[in-house]
């Protein structure tokens, strides 16, 4: 019984998209840490990508609404900080979806002191490696801004973190 419940909850969570990157589910983003049950009440633990991520409150609400709609008891949503989220938690599937959406996925392992000037980020549009860092900070906390010098398109890069 609980196993089925568990699968059902994970399926529902996998259909909830990050509000700022609407092609990436919160499961592929790696911010759902655990699903537990207190009898039939789901307890979902999520973790922020960045401390100031304004999407966390919206995501919590979406999780709550989706589970209520599916007939679950009012879920408990816990926000936890440890273990700390890094870009390594993004699934392979998630990385491909990011690229297809036009956001260059994080390159390499999470933060190893490598800075943006030291890495080559291929353009998600034309795959050229002839790209240029415009700004270390982009449209959201988790991204930096690059420009492709071949196809001339500006693009977001999901920073290693």
């Amino acid at each position, binding site marked *: 019984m609980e196993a089925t419940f568990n699968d059902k909850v994970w399926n529902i969570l996998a259909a909830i998209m990050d509000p700022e990157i609407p092609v990436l589910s919160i499961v592929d983003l790696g911010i759902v840490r655990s699903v537990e049950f207190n009898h039939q009440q789901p307890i979902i633990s999520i973790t*922020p990508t*960045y*401390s*100031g*991520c*304004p999407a966390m409150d919206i995501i919590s609400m979406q999780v709550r609404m989706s589970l209520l709609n599916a007939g679950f008891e009012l879920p408990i949503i816990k926000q936890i*900080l*440890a273990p*700390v*989220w*890094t870009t390594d938690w993004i699934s392979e599937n998630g990385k491909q979806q990011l690229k297809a959406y036009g956001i260059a996925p994080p390159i390499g392992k999470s*933060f190893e002191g490598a*800075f943006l000037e030291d890495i080559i980020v291929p353009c998600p549009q034309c795959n050229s490696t002839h790209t240029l860092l*415009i*700004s*270390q*900070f*982009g*449209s*959201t*906390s988790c991204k930096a*801004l690059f420009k492709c010098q071949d196809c001339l398109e500006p693009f977001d890069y999901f*920073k290693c*973190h």
Partner: protein
Amino acid sequence: MRLNICNGTQKFMLNKIEFLLHLADNALIIGHRSSEWCAHGPVLEQDIAISNIALDYIGQARNFYQYAALRLNELPPESSVFNLPATEDTLAYLRDANDFKNHLITELPNGDWAFTTLRIFFFSSYQYFLYQQLIQHEDAQIAAIAEKSLKEVTYHLRWSSDWVIRLGDGTTESYQRMNTAINALWPYTQELFQENNFLQPAKNILAQIQIDWNEKIKNVFEEAGLPLPEKSIQHKGGTQGFHTEHLPIILTEMQLLQRAYPNCEW
């Protein structure tokens, strides 16, 4: 916050809460100052950069306030004259200037771009070495917040170092502006390493942070061609609640809505 101390365990907890509030206040106030640049940045990319940095700071402040509130609410109600239950919002919006424990350097007005980026450079260098120490803190939640924040601060430090070098090693005017900013900010730097009642157990940590900090400043100033300042008068008192006249002005603006319309939500 004026707290009446009852016994040894509670005294330990009160010191921890004061320490959490100090960390939170620092992040909130420099976050608020950084947010004042939103829509006023020199170019769009830098406007976005400093707004993102402000968001990181305010996120860090929220994490520390939430944890401080959790611990405060565990204390017996008579040990605090502060309204309980505390929340992150009551701690940010309903304390007075003399209850704030932030360092003075965080509350000074933004000045020009040189002043702003140099302040973030000085402060994020300090946070960078502080959070590296706090990752090993015995309290798992403090360690978790530090680990999360350190990743963000590393970007802040890199960004602000770039600006100090770019302006110091730039035109005559940019060099002069950076030099003016150094003279204005230097008297507020040594407070960062000053111990006080809630930082007392951290005495050795602070000494180490100061050594690392001095080294970082020296290296970046060398690359920027900027002079290290002579010894100067040093202001202090922020962590004890003695602030410049600038803090009440920030709080008046930040807290207006909650003060005028208590408990209002949107």
